[in-house]
């Protein structure tokens, strides 16, 4: 155990002490007969002190924005934060035991049904030790709870003022007395939905280029105009579809950066590409299901290999990667695993 003391000295008379005092074992000074307790600063205790300080400042940060924060029991690392979302209050449990390395968040089933489980939160999945803060997680929870209530719970009854709930989550603009536009922005997709309020009931028009890219938009437009779904349903589902589209664009960009002859058909949601490990070229076809990325993509190897052993190894690795699919995986992960099997086959092991 390391210590900062080299020559222990009595704090009262300044004489050297016969032994090293510790926090538990006092040493009696031979000159003034005073009892001296040590204040050792071990690396462990120093670390604990720093951790405590960072947790304390984190709790104070949370308190600034969520004043009702409550410390559970004697442990400052466990806090309960009430998050209010349009009339309902949910208790969010935040455990900072592993802070700043990690964070644990939990909340009641009612809130889960609105925003999904905590491990779906972007701020939790992309937690960066040192730069992420608990208050960011709570902000995301609050904003998602507000958004999902606004997007899924609102009903449209006629006048533009009735879509005020939507305007809390989306940009809503009245461009003319008869037309209101609802803008949907995601990082890669931006478009608007026109609501014709001159007709009764109001009718929705989605631009044709958006319907081509997001085939579900056409179906939603028909269903809204037939009175089957509310404007909240329409906008909420469009935003979800746009987020999925963003994900698909990202996937295709990654595939284009790593493989050759990558083509994508939006109508059939099929990707065709070649995974090369010269001189072998593997042709793949990938079909993205409607519920992608929650449901795994269907990947088909279209090249027949002469070497049965290699083909079996590829199919085995492909099945393993597909069976362990979660929405956080990417198609690139699966294909590079397959590429790795071929590379090891060709180049051997070091």
């Amino acid at each position: 155990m390391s210590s900062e003391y080299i020559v222990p000295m009595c704090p009262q008379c300044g004489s050297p002490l016969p032994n090293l005092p510790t926090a538990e074992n006092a040493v009696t000074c031979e000159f003034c007969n005073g009892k001296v307790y040590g204040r050792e600063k071990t690396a462990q205790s120093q670390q604990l002190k720093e951790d405590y300080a960072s947790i304390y400042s984190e709790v104070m940060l949370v308190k600034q924005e969520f004043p009702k924060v409550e410390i559970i029991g004697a442990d400052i690392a466990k806090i309960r934060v009430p998050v209010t979302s349009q009339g309902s209050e949910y208790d969010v449990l935040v455990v900072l035991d592993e802070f700043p390395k990690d964070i644990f968040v939990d909340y009641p089933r009612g809130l889960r049904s609105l925003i999904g489980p905590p491990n779906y939160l972007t701020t939790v999945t992309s937690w960066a030790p040192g730069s992420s803060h608990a208050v960011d997680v709570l902000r995301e929870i609050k904003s998602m709870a507000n958004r999902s209530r606004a997007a899924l719970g609102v009903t449209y009854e006629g006048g533009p003022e009735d879509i005020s709930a939507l305007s809390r989550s989306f940009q809503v603009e009245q461009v003319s007395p008869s037309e209101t536009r609802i803008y949907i922005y995601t990082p890669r997709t931006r478009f608007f939905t026109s609501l014709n309020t001159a007709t009764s009931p109001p009718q929705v028009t989605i631009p044709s280029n958006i319907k081509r890219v997001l085939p579900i938009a056409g179906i939603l437009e028909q269903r809204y105009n037939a009175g089957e779904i509310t404007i909240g349903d329409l906008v909420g589902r469009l935003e979800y579809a746009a987020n999925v589209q963003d994900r698909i664009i990202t996937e295709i960009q990654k595939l284009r950066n790593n493989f050759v002859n990558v083509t994508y058909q939006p109508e059939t949601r099929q990707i065709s590409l070649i995974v090369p490990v010269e001189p072998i070229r593997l042709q793949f076809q990938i079909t993205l299901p409607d519920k992608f990325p929650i449901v795994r993509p269907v990947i088909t190897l279209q090249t027949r290999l002469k070497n049965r052993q290699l083909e079996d190894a590829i199919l085995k690795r492909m099945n393993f990667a597909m069976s362990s699919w979660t929405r956080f995986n990417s198609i690139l992960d699966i294909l590079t695993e397959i590429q790795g099997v071929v590379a090891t086959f060709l180049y051997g092991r070091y």
Partner: protein
Amino acid sequence: MSHGKEALIKVYFKDPQLPPGQNQREKYVDKYSTVSSVLEEAKTAFSLPSSMQIAFLFKGRKLNPAKTLLDYGVDEDSVLMIVPDRIIGG
């Protein structure tokens, strides 16, 4: 020749000899740097001995250590596969 921060790109080193889930490392590299200098970074990332002869595969082709990543069009989210540096069949 110095370059600004914009030359940094995120790439993934992949060692297919390790089990799935443990065989990838994320690294920010300068796309103007030579393949040989990035190879050294890959060795460090996987704790491989510096004397080990390895090469990168990108888009199925082995990269020449004397050239730069930019020469091969290595860009954001590219996967650089680590293989032993030997001639196939040799």
